[in-house]
């Protein structure tokens, strides 16, 4: 295909940002609508990408390659495989959803939407870049709008949260940069081409692999986040405006996991094998720890934030198990579960944050104990929220169940005790989710909330696609598994070599 679909997907939000900047800043409605409509471009194109992507092979597709800075052999190199196609779609989808839920923004509207579109460009770029320099540029581009979106439009402690988020991530990025430079200097000839580096992967000295792997680990573990690098997350999630929470949970956390699978695993096979047990252990700690801390939360948004720590723990546990069976077939069950969890968590937790935001807009509080019996007053909202709560606790028929059980079945082959402990997480999750549901929606109606209005049409339109996908992926797992299997098999071969 000659049409540079990836470039268009990645840069259309950037063009959109420029358009927004040309608009009159008083025309709030116009700005909001234009940005929402612009975000439909990458969404539509990512659907096309999904449809035309050839899932039978692990090779990079839709590649675009131009020399950029020849003296340093830096290229403008884009391409997608099974790892990135679903993530690009998820990013585009959640961006549109987030913009739809941003209609209540009333101050500095123009800047808000401009920053948002810049953020989208950065996120899409991370999933499309195949040159390390380009990757790093996109990775850092995201930080700036994120910082402002939290710091300007956030809650009461927004400055603290924004700075914390920024410094945490920057801390990781610095190590990543060192890692990138180390790989650049160790490769012969020096290259920043990720595919080339993957080819040279096994040739890197073991000591170097271990050190560089750990540097990348710091960068990605902060993003995921893995215990004990997670404390930026509750603050950032809670203080951020709803739309930004959706993006944080739905996309930014996935970048950590994506980074492991795209960079650490294939480029540093020795390092990966060396550290895999640590990933499993930290994953299981995150599962149990996140669930227990969620249980203690009094603020609804914080509960959802900590549940992310727990849910991404499943992802890490799944990621840590890869081997080739005695018959020579790659064991991708756990990895597929990991990836499934990435996607599914994006949908479910994205929707949870959206719904928390809907409630907060009306009630101006997120304190769980302040509610009660909302099921009587808001039947539709309750139905949607309870459905997603059930999805979050891993109910069959929803995507989360498939993800968790693939992780369990896959990881059990290698870590029996750890997987057993992880399964306890499912019980704890049921505990804190049902407690939350009960205290907010069930019981006697608190007449204080008589003024609350039902979820409106726009908000419903924003959440329904997530609902449909969550159920669809719970019933027809092959929709997503078909896209990723070949790529994951390839990754297993690359790591085990």
């Amino acid at each position: 295909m000659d049409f540079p679909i990836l470039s268009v997907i990645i840069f259309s939000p950037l063009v959109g940002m420029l358009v927004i900047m040309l608009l009159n800043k008083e025309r709030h409605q116009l700005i909001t609508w234009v940005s929402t409509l612009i975000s439909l471009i990458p969404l539509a194109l990512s659907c096309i990408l999904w449809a035309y992507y050839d899932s039978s092979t692990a090779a990079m597709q839709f590649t675009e390659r131009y020399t950029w800075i020849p003296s340093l052999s830096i290229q403008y190199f884009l391409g997608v495989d099974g790892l990135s196609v679903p993530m690009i779609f998820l990013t585009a989808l959640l961006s549109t959803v987030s913009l739809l839920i941003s209609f209540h923004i009333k101050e500095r509207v123009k800047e808000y939407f401009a920053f948002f579109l810049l953020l989208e460009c950065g996120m899409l770029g991370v999933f499309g870049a195949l040159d390390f320099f380009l990757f790093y540029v996109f990775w850092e581009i995201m930080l700036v709008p994120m910082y402002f979106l939290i710091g300007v439009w956030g809650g009461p402690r927004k400055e603290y949260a924004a700075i914390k988020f920024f410094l945490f991530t920057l801390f990781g990025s610095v190590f990543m940069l060192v890692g990138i430079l180390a790989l650049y200097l160790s490769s012969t000839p020096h290259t920043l081409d990720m595919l080339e580096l993957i080819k040279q992967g096994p040739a890197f000295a073991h000591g170097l692999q271990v050190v560089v792997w750990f540097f990348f680990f710091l960068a990605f573990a902060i993003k995921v986040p893995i215990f004990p690098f997670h404390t930026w997350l509750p603050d950032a999630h809670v203080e951020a405006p709803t739309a930004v929470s959706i993006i944080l949970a739905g996309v930014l956390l996935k970048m950590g996991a994506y980074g492991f699978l795209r960079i650490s695993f294939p480029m540093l096979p020795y390092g990966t094998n060396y550290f895999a047990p640590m990933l499993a252990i930290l994953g299981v700690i995150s599962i149990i720890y996140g669930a227990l801390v969620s249980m203690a939360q009094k603020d609804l948004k914080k509960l959802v934030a900590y549940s992310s720590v727990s849910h991404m723990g499943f992802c890490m546990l799944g990621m840590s198990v890869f081997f080739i069976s005695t018959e020579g077939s790659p064991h991708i069950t756990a990895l597929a579960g990991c990836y499934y969890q990435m996607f599914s968590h994006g949908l479910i937790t994205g929707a949870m944050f959206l719904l928390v935001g809907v409630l907060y807009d009306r009630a101006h509080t997120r304190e769980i104990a302040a509610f009660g019996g909302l099921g009587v007053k808001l039947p539709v909202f309750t139905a949607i929220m309870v459905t997603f709560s059930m999805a979050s606790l891993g109910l069959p028929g929803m995507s989360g169940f498939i993800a968790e059980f693939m992780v369990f079945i896959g990881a059990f082959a290698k870590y029996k005790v750890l997987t057993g402990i992880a399964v306890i997480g499912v019980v704890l999750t049921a505990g804190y989710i049902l407690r939350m549901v009960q205290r907010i929606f069930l019981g006697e109606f608190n007449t204080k909330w008589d003024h609350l209005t039902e979820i409106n049409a726009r908000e419903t339109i924003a959440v329904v696609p997530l609902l449909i996908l969550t159920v669809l992926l719970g019933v027809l797992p092959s929709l997503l598994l078909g896209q990723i299997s070949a790529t994951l098999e390839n990754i297993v071969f690359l790591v085990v070599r």
Partner: protein
Amino acid sequence: MLEYSWIIPVLPLAAFLVILLFTRENRSLSAALSITAIAIGFVYATLLLFRQIGDNTIFEMKYGWIVFPTIEIQIGILVDSLTTVMLMVVTIVSLLVQIYSIGYMHGDPRYSRFFSYLSLFTFAMLGLVMANNYFMLLIFWELVGLTSYLLIGFWFEKKTASDAGKKAFITTRIGDFGFGIGICMLGLYFGTFNYLDVFHMAEHSVVPAGILTLTGILLFCGAIGKSAQFPLHVWLPDAMEGPTPVSALIHAATMVAAGVYMVARSMAIFASSPDAAVVVAWIGIITALLAATIALTQNDIKRILAYSTVSQLGYMIMALGLGSFTAGTLHLMTHGFFKASLFLCAGSVIHAIHTNDIQFMGGLRRKTPITFWSMLIASLSIAGIFPLSGFWSKDEIIAATAGHPVFKVLTLLVAFMTAFYMFRLIFLTFFGEPRDRKAYDHAHESPKTMTTPLIILSVLSICAGWVAIPWLHKGYSMFAYYHEPHHAHAHWDVMITSTIVAGAGILLAWLVYQKKLISADMIARKFKRLYTLSFRKFYFDEIYDAIIIKPILGFADYLWGFDNGLIDGIVNGLASFTLWLSRVKLWFDLHIIDGIVNGLGYSIWGIGAIIRQFQTGRVQFYGVIIMVGIVLMLVIRIV
């Protein structure tokens, strides 16, 4: 016909979706849809049953659902004799309960929603019994758990109801913890979840015995949760907070039997692993005994029945653990009918008198004759009186204990207690003088939609067990069996003993509660400790609250403090440290570095200031200096 048997579960699913999305506003249409779907399912299931009786072969249909290089998860259906028996129980009871609900839920503002939930449940339960592999079983297993949660908490404004729903879900999930790991064991050591493949491997010792035993016990954990076995039985009595039709359908006849079904289905595993089977049998009898003991002293009509359910499920589990597939599944079926009948009767009583407490009932047989007769029949059946259904299935269970004297004695003891507490209930509810005159005067028989199901279930409570009459040429044991079909034998000794035991139980209840020859209060006072223990349900809830729930919540709070204090403290500490460091550097800059720079400046300035003293620009001063200099030089020269 078999190829299309998947429509049995799919129809209720369709009904659920249609009600949810389109007919919420139209109450009677919602009910009609739901009932039509299950009615068609019932007819289809009947046809399947007759086909199965004619040709007792296994039919399996399967597709790959999640296919990996190392493992395949299938979606499919399996129809054999056990499936058809289960289908009959589920469709009949569902159909009758739904018809009953028309009257019972009449006037409830969430009427349509109730029927949509019932349809969803029926879908999940039918899917559960038709699945062809353990993974599908797990899926439907969790789905029935969801609908149970939704229906227990159907009147969610009541705190007790929403508490009970939550408790049910979480308690069964604890069992599912083991079940989930059991599924992982299957995946790892068997490499498949398909029933027939797993059974084949279990029977041919393809996997080591230890693994097989562990897998069996882990899977059984799921049954402990779902079928409310000791020590996870605590959720079922609380589940009675749900509407009574729900108690009848889900928490008596069908869903709670899912655990029994799973053990029966997995008979190949337990038959090949005697150690796992022993665990199953002991859990079963302990549960049966424990629950029967508690049922003796309860006053809430539905709770008595709930403990009775737990106890009877324990019976079935025990029979399966002792290796009698036929006894376990037969009792599952007969119990499904008479227990559903008992619950629906209880609902009818509550409907009439608006209380659950049997202490405030009495004499109701005159006011609600149909309910009375139905309940009497069902009670005789559960007590095991000839020739009702329960007699035949209970005898099978007692016969299964042959060669295990401890089990036999305990089983008979439970049978005695069952007869006693059931007739305590009957006498206190329907006989004697009304103890709450006002409520009694207002009491009335339920409408036809409610009494018709009672009559049908009464017939089933009498006749359903006849399929197992030993003298039949082709009885139940020739149809539903594990391994080989076998002719049932007439166990005269068992029949006589069980009848005597049941009769004694009824007689004692009659003496205490009808004739009042023995005072119940006096017995309670005499055995105060035992009475309190039974009345307070052996303090399971209190103990669990103290040793599990409170510690977990406390630990959660502690961890939250840890997260906020230590982990985030380190982060903030690092930040503060950096800030402090920068302040130190600032001070250093200001005072030391700048100090040196400024100091240099100052010293030069100071030196300059001193030196400047000499450059006053006054000629006289210079002249004086010159003079002093000359004098000094002269002095030096001379000296």
